[in-house]
């Protein structure tokens, strides 16, 4: 059996799954319930001077019938008195001594930082997470992302914390910044033990088309919020990779952003995270999702022969390169498996309109055909195809040649003028522009007229066109 336990910068946890600092960790009741369900740790809802919240706090991005593929909130840090939280932390730690309880903190003055760090340490916290990420409400008061966006300020505050900290300190970073490694380096310089990222992304999650106001709507008005949920995972993965590859950061990373299942968690880990934090998925489906996550992770580790999490932390990092280091001689083209094709022709229209006109339709068949010489191997058709393994990208080069943009640049073999002979697409065939005209114009006609596509029908009045101007 693989060992799922971790020691994250000195914080021990039976598995790498922690609840992120957010509504699911607002109370001892919730954290105990989560630990009972199987979560390894919890980062407590951020403590500080208690706030006052608005009613109507969350908004969601729905995609077709899928709810909450993106999620945002305008809730602030804990609105409960510190003493209540400390008492509950103590209670949780007594009951679950081997689980990780991390106190998330956000205060202003050096004295407040010193006081609260001591308080949560005395309550039995295993670690501290500094919330330098919240992008709404708190940042306007000089806290949260206002700190995370100013590496020097961040460094100063981390130094204040380190003056008194006796337990590991994690700095939580905001993604609302051009280069995530800058605050990460500042955290290291200040002596932090680890970083966690990403916090939420400043966002407007949607606009109500009738009330002309952004979601979530508070009495007819709204405000920017913090974006999270499955949709943000790609942004998180990239930033985790950036920090993990930076030689000046070299800190354990707790990965946060769009983790909903074991696969998401493994992706974070492969790019350098050694613990992962989850919020939206728990808010959507409840704490029970942990069973799928641990079971999936365990199964993956068994299949890959990994004994511990550390066997694959950052395992994908060596393969994440700069673009200029990719092999320009590698060549794939699409192949349609005719037995599997159901004839939706999404690949055709995607390639025709969105790529390189490398897929043709055939008379008498719904199964499209790849025009191999036009195919640049962009993957688009294989991405839009709704049938598993129907369109595959097949390697066409023999694998013996390797040449990167960097090498070509060094060899002085790159296009340098606007009409350079070395242009990559110089000999790529494209149809004459005017060949596009009329190709699909008949589709704007209703009913049978569309099918017949006759010019007479094209000019005839549609019943709806004569809707009198009333």
């Amino acid at each position: 059996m693989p060992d799922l336990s971790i020691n994250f910068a000195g914080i021990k946890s039976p598995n790498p799954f922690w609840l992120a600092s957010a509504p699911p960790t607002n109370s001892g009741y919730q954290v105990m319930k989560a630990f009972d369900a199987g979560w390894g740790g919890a980062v407590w809802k951020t403590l500080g001077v208690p706030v006052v919240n608005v009613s109507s706090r969350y908004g969601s991005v729905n995609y077709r019938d899928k709810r909450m593929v993106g999620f945002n909130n305008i809730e602030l840090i804990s609105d409960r008195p510190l003493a209540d939280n400390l008492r509950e932390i103590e209670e949780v730690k007594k009951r679950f001594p081997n689980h990780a309880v991390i106190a998330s903190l956000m205060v202003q003055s050096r004295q407040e930082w010193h006081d609260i760090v001591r308080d949560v340490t005395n309550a039995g916290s295993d670690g501290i997470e500094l919330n330098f990420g919240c992008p709404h409400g708190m940042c306007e008061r000089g806290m949260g992302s206002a700190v995370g966006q100013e590496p020097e300020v961040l460094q100063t505050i981390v130094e204040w914390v380190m003056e008194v900290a006796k337990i590991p300190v994690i700095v939580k970073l905001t993604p609302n910044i051009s280069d995530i490694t800058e605050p990460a380096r500042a955290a290291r310089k200040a002596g932090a033990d680890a970083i966690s990222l990403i916090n939420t992304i400043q966002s407007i999650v949607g606009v109500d088309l009738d009330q002309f106001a952004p979601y979530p709507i508070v009495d007819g008005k709204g405000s920017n919020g913090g974006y999270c949920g499955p949709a943000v995972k790609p942004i998180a993965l990239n930033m985790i990779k950036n920090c993990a590859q930076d030689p000046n950061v070299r800190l354990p990373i707790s990965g946060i952003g769009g983790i909903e299942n074991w696969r998401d968690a493994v992706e974070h880990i492969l790019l350098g995270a050694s613990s992962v934090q989850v919020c939206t998925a728990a808010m959507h489906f409840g704490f029970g999702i942990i069973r799928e996550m641990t079971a999936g992770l365990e199964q993956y580790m068994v299949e890959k022969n990994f004994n511990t999490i550390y066997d694959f932390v950052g395992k994908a990092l060596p393969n994440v390169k700069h673009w200029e280091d990719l092999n320009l001689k590698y060549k794939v083209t699409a192949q349609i498996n005719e037995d599997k094709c159901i004839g939706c022709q999404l690949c055709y229209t995607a390639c025709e309109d969105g790529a390189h006109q490398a897929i043709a339709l055939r008379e008498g068949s719904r199964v499209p055909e790849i025009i191999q010489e036009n195919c640049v191997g962009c993957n688009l058709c294989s991405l839009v195809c709704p049938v598993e393994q129907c369109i595959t990208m097949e390697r066409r080069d023999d694998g013996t040649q390797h040449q990167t943009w960097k090498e070509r640049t060094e060899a002085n073999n790159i296009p340098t003028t606007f009409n350079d002979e070395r242009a990559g697409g110089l000999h790529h065939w494209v149809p004459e522009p005017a060949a596009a005209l009329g190709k699909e114009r008949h589709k704007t006609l209703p009913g049978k007229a569309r099918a017949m596509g006759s010019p007479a029908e094209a000019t005839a009045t549609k019943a709806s066109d004569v809707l009198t101007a009333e």
Partner: protein
Amino acid sequence: MAEFSTPTTEQEFDANFAQIKPLMSNTEALYESSRCLFCFDAPCIKACPSGIDIPQFIRQINTGNTTGAAKTIYEANYFGNACGKVCPTEVLCEGACVYNLNEQKPIEIGRLQSHATRKVIDSGKKLFGPGAPNGRKVAVVGAGPAGISAACELRALGYEVDVFEAKALPSGLTLYGVAPYKITNAETLAEMEYLESQFGYKVHYNQPISSRRELEALEESYDAIFLGIGLGRTNALLLPGEERANCIGAVEFIEQLRTEHHHVAVGKKVIVLGGGNTAMDAASESSRLGADSVILAYRRGKEEMGAYEFEYDLAKGVGVKGLFNVAPVEIVGNGKVEGVKFIRTAIQDGQVQIVPGSEFVEPCDMVIKATGQAKQTHFLQLIPGLQLDGKGRIVADARTGQTTNPKYFASGDALNGGAEVVNAAAEAKATARGIHEYLSNQL
């Protein structure tokens, strides 16, 4: 043992004849529309006789634009709501859905279509209107799917339109001929009211056109005449005993059922003669009316029935039993029907051959003849120069619907010999354009 108990109230009737394609809620429509792949040159569009841009209207439902969805549907087919419910979608749009090829459930296109159209019908939203008056008049004979569709399109093109209908209500077989579990009277009539209020044609009910004199009057007063007269009564079997009480035609039976609901009495043991879709309907309906046993008798084998497979499945599902390779020779009884004398058949070289000496009597107390509808040849012969083909169908130009008497145009069952509502609606729309082309060229 009867599958259903005899309905005695409207509620019991509704329960026995529950809609097989019930209305979709907003949530169900969202989930179902989300499944659509939005195929390029989608096979569902090609399979639809009226060419509705199905992926477009499904996308419109999915993006919360149900009004736009209804408009897309109606632009192609004025019987959009009815077709969503009564079309044999299993062999048309839904049968063509690419999901079938992946062994996945096809999109429920019919129900989505009715969902969208029902919304605009209920709201009464104005989507269409008559075109600027062009000063010309067209008479439409028959307020069925063909006649009403032609009337809508002609109004949109600016014609004054009078529809003459022999019966008391519009929509033809949609109201009088379709099984009650496919569409309710209220649904059918709501769409008719919606169309009439949008386009403003005039329907003259209880006004059959049946004499040369009446036709002459139309010829004098109108610039063109559209024939949407459909088919006639059930074909006679020409068998001894056919006149006995409780031996009735399927078309007549279904019409009675649609108008009188649970007040229609059905026998305890019913034999339905025929193997087409109407036979399946009549058999299903008999069972749902509480018959103890319903036998579907067909002179060929099961596989040779004209009915769609799903229609036979539907009948089997309510307890109908098939009796194949039998031909009726006599309706036996004493005043009332007491049975059908059959003779067994065999198929040789595609021909039905009787098996000598194999007669037997299957007892029953009701016989429903679903043996096809007669053409209205007698009426059509009143129109000078109007040609019919060997099967009694009106001969007309395939594109314009113009008959061999240039003033007369035709669509629907009278032209195609008997097809679906959707065929009539699609043909009539094209024929209305044919009328427009003809009259425009006359100026």
